[in-house]
């Protein structure tokens, strides 16, 4: 049962954090939570399809189907997050440091509201797709072993419960900080998350031999081991890899450059605006 708890927790931790951050974002922007319904439906449906067609997918494209689908899912999630990042970037400089919520009518976000919600739906739905598909496959393996299924399901429910509890705690911590601080936290979270996801794309391509891995650039497994709890948490948060190679690091930078550019651009605009007003 402990195996099931750990496996499910590992799968849901990242999705729980993503859902938490985006729900907190809705709250801060005074947008309704309704978008989470299509996001969860998309996640459950697509994960079921991936699990149901797992054999066909695994055999597709000379046995590289699983990796290509994963890479595509990671890429779609990254693109959704980049768009969200570009939309919220101005708030890092303009939003209130005192207020906890932004008014629904705030002009900086209002024109982009639909795009923001569509991207949130895709980000959550497609993050869930891959992780939950693995859970379906894992639990499906117990269907022929009724005695073990019970224990796996219980373990799975506990793992899901722990993941969701962590999400709820994080949500309430985020709700109590000011709008601007929240968006800074969200932006940093998105940067690390996209960096981590892009390293996963590199890993998929390495796994099927499309790319060839050189020697790892460093090995920090003696400091933070990926097997450890801290390692698992850092993996979920920032895509921590104790021994990445050069390709993964290149992918990391490609994914975070749009965020850094958005940051620099908005900082520049803010400075221009403040110098104009001071004249």
């Amino acid at each position, binding site marked *: 049962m402990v195996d099931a708890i750990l496996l499910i927790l590992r799968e849901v931790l990242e999705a729980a954090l993503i859902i938490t951050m985006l729900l907190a974002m809705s709250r801060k922007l005074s947008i309704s939570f309704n978008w989470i319904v299509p996001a969860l439906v998309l996640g459950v449906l697509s994960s079921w399809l991936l699990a149901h067609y797992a054999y066909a997918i695994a055999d597709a494209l000379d*046995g590289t189907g699983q*990796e290509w689908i994963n890479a595509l899912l990671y890429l779609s999630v990254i693109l959704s997050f980049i768009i969200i990042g570009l939309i919220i970037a101005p708030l890092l400089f303009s939003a209130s440091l005192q207020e906890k919520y932004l008014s629904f009518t705030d002009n900086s976000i209002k024109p982009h509201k639909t795009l923001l919600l569509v991207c949130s739906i895709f980000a959550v739905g497609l993050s869930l797709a891959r992780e939950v598909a693995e859970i379906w496959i894992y639990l499906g393996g117990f269907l022929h072993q009724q005695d073990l299924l019970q224990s796996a399901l219980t373990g799975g429910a506990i793992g899901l419960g722990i993941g969701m509890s962590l999400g709820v705690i994080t949500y309430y911590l985020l709700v109590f900080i000011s709008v601007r601080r929240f968006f800074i936290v969200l932006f940093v979270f998105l940067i690390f998350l996209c960096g981590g996801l892009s390293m996963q794309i590199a890993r998929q*391509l390495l796994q099927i031999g*499309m*790319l060839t891995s050189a020697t790892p650039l460093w090995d920090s497994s003696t400091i933070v081991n990926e097997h450890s709890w801290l390692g698992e948490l850092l993996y979920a948060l920032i895509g921590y890899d104790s021994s*990445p190679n050069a390709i993964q690091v290149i992918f990391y930078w490609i994914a975070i450059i749009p965020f850094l550019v958005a940051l620099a651009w908005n900082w520049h605009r803010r400075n221009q605006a403040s110098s104009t007003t001071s004249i």
Partner: protein
Amino acid sequence: MRISTLLLILLGISPPLYAMAAPEFTIEIRDHLFFPSTLVVPANTKVKLIIINKDSTPEEFESYELNREKVIMGGAKAVIFIGPLKPGDYPFFGEFNPKTAQGLIRAQH
């Protein structure tokens, strides 16, 4: 990996990298165990692992040290490229049955 190759891949005109002959090794999964549980592969060489799951249940080949993770459905097989590896031991395990499914890749000259 050279930058030029990366650019070619980004442009969608990748050279047939996986056509390059990599030595093949086979690992079987039976009763949630890996056979062989220790596999010796040449160091500093890209290696093609073929993992055959003889069980009816799915398994996930996972290794933090090798940085690999792949679900292998019951009765199916999977291909995973690893390396070039520095000489040393690289443990792997089956994430769905971590207590029994344990193995080791040993890279040596």
